[in-house]
């Protein structure tokens, strides 16, 4: 008998399939390998000894971690998608599409028509590992997650691009108390969306769909999301029994086509050889050269401590600080001398309210007569916890951290805090926070990342981090986002790196990430002399040591590193102590209960989903709101906002109609149209067209076009164009006008006047990827800078498309269009001037929200402008100010019109008191890698704060709010100091 073995060694699991001569499956298995890939492969063959020992075997290895093993053992290897296709063709020949999700891979195979196989690219989550991560975030096992998901009532939008984004979306939902059932289903929906945008890339998934791989085989809820979204009927969705083993099956079939067969002994030897191969690789130097270094390190850090006082017997005033962070809740109880009475650091298990309640009960139980004189809360869950337990003080977390750091090092000039999700750095100058740097969504490979990783490798975090200290050759893992590190680790595993080296390598990566990606230092001296490090992640000695080595200097890590936010807010609560604290008493706690439910707000067309928490005393807390309307009602809307002014001005064009004798023409409200609409609308209307604009942007519009997007890493403003075009087609227009504009208006403020490549040429993507049927897409290559040439070229273009326009018509339309464009511009500028005047007369601050014209779309900016006005600041825009001020050459090549406006605005803002700039950057915008540094420089030279907010399809105003509140706190702080000087 000759058996055929397929070994599928993936990123997280090892699958084995054995076929007999009649191709019957005589053995199959599916196990997690916890990165012991080569050992597990060998053990698997040892386990099969009884079956195989007296027979011939043919073998093929597949899977992302299988290549190294195959090479070392000199065994045949087959690429996994290729193997899958083999098995599908044999066992399920009627399949049209195969969707296979694995640990870190996602694949789609189209079998009908042109065969196409797609794998997820380097930046993509939405896989098994992502689901694992999310389950551990919700603190449930996979089975429970699946069960929960089947009882959902509502799906939340969760970013589907990569795990890091999704996590930032999910965390606020957890904090707001949204139901786990709904979150679970939303997680699965995110995976589905990711598969559709990331993999299908413009090809429709239809017909008979075969679902393969572990996650799809084991999670009914996930399959349901797919079936629902793809609108498949029962016969079309096929879930084979062999689903999890399918790739292994394909490998076994492939093995059959090999000429070579092995005896059991030979196979065993080959895998033994592979398991024993020592792979030498250039690792990084170890963290400690010798024991003395380790001891010095330990002793030095033992000094930064706080003393403890016995809680049970304490009878003075006590101060409570709660830091309701993203994954953990921290509690500090402090005595009058700032010594610790009680501390706690708990994973909030998705429910911070329960954690705080339990902690309070615990404290009261130990000392029933305790006098809590004041209490405060900070962090993500600030509002929720403050309302729930009637705490006295709330403060933004950045300020709390600074307060605590000052306690340990009064002369501190730099603080870096790496928590579970966030990385925060503050530069302190003259006793105030001078610069706040937070991690951008894409590089947040922070503490929880190490923890999740440790878990996935089968260790707890403490064990894992201690192992890192012993790493002899820490692996070099690069320093990008989690997804990238996952595959780097995979590669290291393939090369046989030890867990110690991986642990150390991860810590070094996190540190490099922080230093070079988030803070972007060139020189350790930039950070200042007195550095305090804090946050839960620095409790990990491996991270701490890596940080010191990378910086080349010693830093202070308070022993309560993970509790600094809570300690800081306790100190603040003490300073701002009320006459009597309003905190819930022991008795109140007994009666305490709360429930949360989700509704859709109906106060405007956004229909934000709100989570309403109701407490037993009848108090309600609304979370998830983007503006203050659901809380404050319709009042308080006097604060000027250039963003909403511009947007409403453009909306007015929907009602402007001319003679319309040439019939309807569609214009998509996308990208540069937010700037050029007054021009094109007037132009087309004047030519006799009835202009039909696409509807307001929304997730629904985006989803409409999702399946036609060819490049999932393009920016959100570009990706949403697809939906707008389809929206216009649904309206029945026969022509769509969407010009391709290499050049923008030359406004005399830059050396050239380009649009970015995406803005300039997106019509090409539309033309090549959307089935336009009978709709004609008119996309002339046109420039507006030479009026005569413009008219000539436009007439020619129309003529080529069978539309005759007389010279006179063209002249009139062009004239009107230019006049209207200028008029619009001046209206906006006038409004901005008034806004600044209003701010000055009312004594409020103003924020220049600087981005691109299309950032005024509420679906793209997620209501950040309204969030700012709700915090009491006027909002102006980059294109509403300083358009005419003198243009000076910059260090960078200033050749894009929209970017030139940013530079001009930054310079203008620098001359204003009480005005700061926030730069909005769309994720994936390559050009902003140039502008951000330049704008930071312009603002810094002029002693202004630089704040950047990255936006994407994710809708996470929680983090944005913290940043803006931190900025406002810094502005106020600065204002007060100026006043006292």
């Amino acid at each position, binding site marked *: 008998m000759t058996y055929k073995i397929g070994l599928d060694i993936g990123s997280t699991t090892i699958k084995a399939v054995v076929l007999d001569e009649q191709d019957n499956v005589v053995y199959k298995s599916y196990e997690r390998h916890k990165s012991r890939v080569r050992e597990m492969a060998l053990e698997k063959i040892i386990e099969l000894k009884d079956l195989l020992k007296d027979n011939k075997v043919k073998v093929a290895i597949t899977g*992302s971690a299988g*290549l190294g093993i195959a090479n070392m053992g000199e065994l045949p290897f*087959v*690429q996994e998608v*290729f193997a899958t296709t083999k098995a599908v063709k044999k066992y399920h020949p009627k399949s049209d599409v195969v969707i296979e999700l694995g640990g870190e891979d996602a694949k789609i195979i189209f079998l009908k*028509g*042109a*065969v196409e196989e797609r*794998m997820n690219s*380097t*930046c993509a989550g939405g896989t098994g590992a992502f689901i694992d991560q999310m389950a551990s975030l919700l603190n449930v096992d996979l089975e429970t997650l699946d069960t929960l998901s089947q009882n959902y009532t509502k799906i939340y939008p969760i970013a589907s691009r990569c795990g890091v984004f999704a996590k930032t979306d999910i965390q606020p939902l957890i904090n707001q108390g949204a139901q786990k059932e709904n979150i679970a289903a939303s997680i699965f929906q995110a995976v589905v969306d990711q598969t559709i945008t990331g993999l299908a890339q413009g*090809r429709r998934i239809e017909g008979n769909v075969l679902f393969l791989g572990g996650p799809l085989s084991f999670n009914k809820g996930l399959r349901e999301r797919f079936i629902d979204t793809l609108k498949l009927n029962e016969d079309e969705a096929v879930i084979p029994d062999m689903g999890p083993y399918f790739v292994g099956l394909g490998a076994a079939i492939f093995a059959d086509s090999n000429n070579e067969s092995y005896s059991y002994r030979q196979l065993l030897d080959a895998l033994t050889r592979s398991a024993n191969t020592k792979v030498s690789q250039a690792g990084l130097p170890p963290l400690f050269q010798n024991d003395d270094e380790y001891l010095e390190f330990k002793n030095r850090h033992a000094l930064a401590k706080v003393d403890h006082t016995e809680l049970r017997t304490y009878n003075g005033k006590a101060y409570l600080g709660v830091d309701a962070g993203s994954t953990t809740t921290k509690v500090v109880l402090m005595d009058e001398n700032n010594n610790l009475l009680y501390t706690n650091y708990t994973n909030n298990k998705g429910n911070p309210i329960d954690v705080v309640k339990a902690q309070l009960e615990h404290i009261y139980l130990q000392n029933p007569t305790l006098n809590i004189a004041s209490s405060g809360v900070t962090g993500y869950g600030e509002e929720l916890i403050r309302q729930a337990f009637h705490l006295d003080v709330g403060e933004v977390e950045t300020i709390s951290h600074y307060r605590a750091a000052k306690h340990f090092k009064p002369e501190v000039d730099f603080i870096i805090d790496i928590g579970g999700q966030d990385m925060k750095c503050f530069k302190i100058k003259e006793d105030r926070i001078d610069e706040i740097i937070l991690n951008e969504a894409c*590089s947040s490979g922070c503490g929880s990342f190490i923890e999740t990783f440790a878990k996935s490798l089968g260790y707890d975090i403490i064990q894992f981090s201690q192992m890192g200290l012993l790493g002899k050759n820490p692996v070099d893992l*690069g*320093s*990008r986002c989690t997804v*990238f*590190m996952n*595959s*780097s680790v*995979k*590669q290291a595993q*393939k090369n046989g790196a030890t867990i110690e080296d991986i642990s150390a390598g991860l810590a070094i990566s996190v540190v490099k990430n922080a230093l*070079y*990606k988030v803070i*972007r230092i*060139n*020189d350790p001296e930039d950070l200042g002399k007195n550095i305090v490090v804090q946050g839960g992640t620095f409790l990990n000695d491996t991270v701490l040591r890596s940080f010191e080595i990378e910086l080349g200097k010693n830093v202070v890590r308070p022993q309560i590193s993970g509790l600094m936010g809570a300690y800081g807010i306790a100190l603040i609560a003490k300073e701002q102590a009320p006459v009597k604290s309003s905190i819930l008493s022991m008795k109140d706690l007994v009666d305490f209960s709360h429930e949360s439910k989700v509704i859709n707000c109906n106060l405007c067309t956004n229909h934000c989903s709100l989570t309403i928490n109701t407490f037993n005393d009848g108090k309600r807390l609304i979370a998830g709101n983007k503006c203050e309307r659901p809380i404050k009602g319709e009042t308080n809307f006097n604060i000027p906002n250039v963003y909403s002014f511009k947007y409403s001005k453009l909306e007015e064009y929907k009602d402007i109609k001319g003679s319309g004798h040439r019939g309807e023409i569609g214009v998509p409200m996308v990208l540069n149209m937010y700037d050029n609409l007054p021009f094109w609308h007037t132009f087309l209307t004047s030519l006799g067209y009835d202009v039909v604009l696409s509807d307001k942007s929304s997730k629904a519009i985006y989803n409409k076009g999702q399946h036609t997007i*060819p*490049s999932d*890493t*393009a920016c959100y403003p570009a990706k949403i164009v697809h939906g707008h075009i389809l929206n216009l087609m649904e309206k029945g227009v026969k022509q769509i006008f969407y010009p*391709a504009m*290499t050049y923008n208006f030359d406004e005399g403020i830059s050396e050239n006047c*380009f649009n*970015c*490549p*995406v803005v*300039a*040429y*997106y019509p*090409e*993507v539309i033309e*090549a*990827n959307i089935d336009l049927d009978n709709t004609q897409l008119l996309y002339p*290559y*046109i*420039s507006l*800078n*030479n009026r005569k*040439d413009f008219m000539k070229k436009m007439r020619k273009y129309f003529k080529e498309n069978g539309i005759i326009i007389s010279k006179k018509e063209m002249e009139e339309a062009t004239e009107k269009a230019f006049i209207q464009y200028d008029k619009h511009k001046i209206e906006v500028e006038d409004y901005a001037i008034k806004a600044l005047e209003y701010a000055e007369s009312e004594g409020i601050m103003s924020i220049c929200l600087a981005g691109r014209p299309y950032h005024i779309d509420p679906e793209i900016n997620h209501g950040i402008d309204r969030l700012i006005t709700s915090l009491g600041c006027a909002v102006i825009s980059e294109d509403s100010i300083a358009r005419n001020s003198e243009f000076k*050459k910059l260090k*960078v*090549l200033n*050749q894009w019109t929209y970017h030139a406006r940013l530079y001009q605005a930054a310079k203008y803002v620098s001359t204003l008191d009480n005005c700061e700039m926030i730069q909005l950057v769309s994720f994936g915008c*390559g*050009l902003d*890698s*140039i502008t*951000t540094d330049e704008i930071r420089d312009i603002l810094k030279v002029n002693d202004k704060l630089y704040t950047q907010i990255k936006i994407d399809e994710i809708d996470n105003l929680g983090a944005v709010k913290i940043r803006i509140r931190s900025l406002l706190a810094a502005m106020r702080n600065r204002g007060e100091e100026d006043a006292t000087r």
Partner: protein
Amino acid sequence: MQQDNRVEFTQEMKKTHTILIPNMLNMHFEIIEQLLISEGYKVELLKTTHHNIVNEGVKNVHNDTCYPALLVVGQMIDALKSGKYDLNKVALIMTQTGGGCRASNYIHLLRKALKNNGMEQVPVISVNFYGLETNSGFKFTYRFLIKAVYAIIYGDMLMWISNQCKPYELNAGDTEAVDKKWTKRIADQMHSPSFLRVKRNYKAILEDYEAIPKSNEEKVRVGIVGEIYMKYSPLGNNELEKFLIREGAEPVLSGLLDFIAYCCENMVLDYDLYNINKVNRNLARIALRYLVHSQNKMIKAIKKHGKFKVMSNFNEVKVMAKDYISKGVKMGEGWLLTSEMLELIHSGVNNVICTQPFGCLPNHIVAKGMMRKIKDNYPESNVVAIDYDPGASTINQENRIKLMLSNAKMNMEK
């Protein structure tokens, strides 16, 4: 408007300073190195490949900056920090395409990096044809430009023919020896007018390559297109050509001349579409004629020799994508990239790797944006896009390429 305070590369510096050139194409750049020396410059081609280049890049440029810039800046800063050069006697050189792609700004990123490392005295020479920056010590003479055209054409030819030999050579290293021999010979010829004796050179080159003992086995041919640095630079694409040869495939790379011609063609189009820069248009037309004419001579030589596959000339390439994308798309590699994919498919190379830096803006349009349409029209095409960046692991890239290769091999066996 010229009020920036960059350090100019002066005529005195031409005598005292060594210009460091970042490497992109092994054979081409060795010839160009000698070209510059023959014109009286002191130069050194940076052939470094060690890991610290990436580290320096990551430290010195914004993390969203695309990978080619990161590598080039990293390579230069790494060299300057190596202690091998006197910082007061060294200069750097970088191209500036002047288009709407952010690549035009890389020279400024390099200067910023120099400043941050306290090396602002090092002059950076911009190579551009738009007059963006000028240096009194670095000028393009007519002779210089002619030499450059030939340097590129010879480079293109060597690369093109070498790739048809290397995968099939019976004795490992034979092809490389011929590569080395001819790169050196042409480089040396830059010092005299003998590089102009193209007929003789072409013939001798072809004969030398033909003489290499080769097998007749049929191999999968794989085209490489993409962002220009990623397409060519072994440092950038993790030695993609070598990898393909190791995997039993024949790499097919079109030449650098097409890209230069593409830039000229865009100047012509700028006038046609927007009525701007008439002078540039006229110069570009003359240049184009000369480029295509010179390229044709080389192609004819290959044709006449008859033993190697022939490349398409630029005039054939440039009309390839007319049903796909407008030639108005001129940022980055623009319409040329789409054309190159189609040219490959038309000439029977259905397997194509499109190399791009992660997050490359023009490639959203001209590469990924066009793939669906190409696949629809050519179901047998087998195109894979590979992203490169400092964090991307080679295993992930190789795995995707392997999938493409498995399919290519299956298609070949059909």
